[in-house]
């Protein structure tokens, strides 16, 4: 499955579908408890991470509020 993650192409070598929680794990996203996830330009509710599935061609952004500046 080919995704665009934080503006860069990413290939995930898995046949089965992946929800957001599994994607965070697969990509070893740092501090998953604090990350905001944007899927195809829409910010996801944290409660929907389990029920939201990523598909081939999706664009995903991981955003943190603790970083350097604005």
């Amino acid at each position, binding site marked *: 499955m080919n995704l665009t993650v*934080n*503006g860069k192409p990413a290939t995930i070598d898995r046949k089965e579908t992946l929800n957001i929680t599994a994607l965070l794990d697969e990509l070893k996203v*740092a*501090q998953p*408890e*604090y990350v*905001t996830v944007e899927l195809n330009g829409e*910010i996801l*509710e*944290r409660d929907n991470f389990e029920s939201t599935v990523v598909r081939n061609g999706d664009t995903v*952004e*991981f*955003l*943190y*509020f*603790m*970083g*350097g*500046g*604005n």
Partner: protein
Amino acid sequence: MTIKARKLRFDTLLIHGGLEAGPAGATTVPVVQSSSFAHHTAEDLEDIFRGRKVGQVYTRIGNPTTESLEKRLALLEGGIAAIATASGMAAITTAVMTIVRSGDEILASSSLFGGTFSLFRDTLANYGIRAKFVDPTDITAVRNGITEQTRLIFVETIGNPKLDVPDIPAIAAAAQEAGVPLMVDATVTTPYLARGTELGADIVIHSTSKFINGTGSAIGGAIIDMGSFDWGSGKFPHFEPFAKKYRNFAFTARARKLIHKDFGACPAPMNSFLLTEGIETLALRMDRHCENAMQLARFLKGHDKVKWVNYPGLEDSPHHGVAKRLYKGKYSGLLTFGLADKSAAFRFINGVKLAKNLANIGDAKTLVIHPASTICSDFGPEEKALMGVTEELVRVSVGIEDIDDIIDDFAEALDNI
């Protein structure tokens, strides 16, 4: 086996919460005494600044030692995130300025710590922010004090030095009905007596210089976000972009990205280290502070030179019932008592040898002070009355020494008045 920090019990979190494995197997948090942090590529630093990647940039904004303390405090309070600051007053200023704007009102306890009272009444008034003070133990007064302009309710778990004990869950219910966040300064009780989640606070404040440090070795403050308040209700338009993007992290995101970053009241990494070390023994120390304060209160109550004793642990205290219900039968380490007059209070303070005469609380050492002539000396009679400060009053922060030595010290000083 990986330990999931959130499943650990409170006393274990005090020691292990937020602690990552240190270099070379270090078991204490490393002091990362570096003003800024280098990154391999320009792209890496761009990603951090855009919020796409986690990383440290500059100690004013974040520091690994401080981050460890923040994670521990968030876990202890049951919150979702924490910000450590340079002092308790820095924590209050940062947290309050994150929420209120010119034209807004703060509904605050009339028995606030003097520094907070002065910030609200005088300093913030210069920026168009109005504070209204009410008796926090009168829930009707609290409810009636909320207006269309109220954007924050601010109370202390135990007022310092008045030692009044508001029914915080009842205030939390009133705040929730009004759609206003409740900020609670829990410095005197610490999360050991009650966690923010148990009280219904939306944001918890600490002067970590006090019981959390425990040894009087560092100044610090903390803001802990419970993640419970809905910032996207429309009542806080300046929060809308943060609420949309960061959901229940909106408060911490706005504080970190704007106020904490812009005001710059960050802690020194060495102080974060001292606070992280100090907090490990919080439960043991608080138990001893509470036991010693109760015994000292009883001793003072039976002494013929003492006119009155104010300690929420005493059954005849008007605040005993609420304190017992909210704080698990513990009443912290602060008490006040009255002597004949100011002169007697001074003679007592000059007579103690073990207890230190200084402006702090929550130290392992027993501390005494005459608030009317020191920490509250800038206030007039009306404000002093609101704070419960009278000329004959002595405040004691009861330490964790052997109680018999504390009582001996007090008995000798009282005899020599």
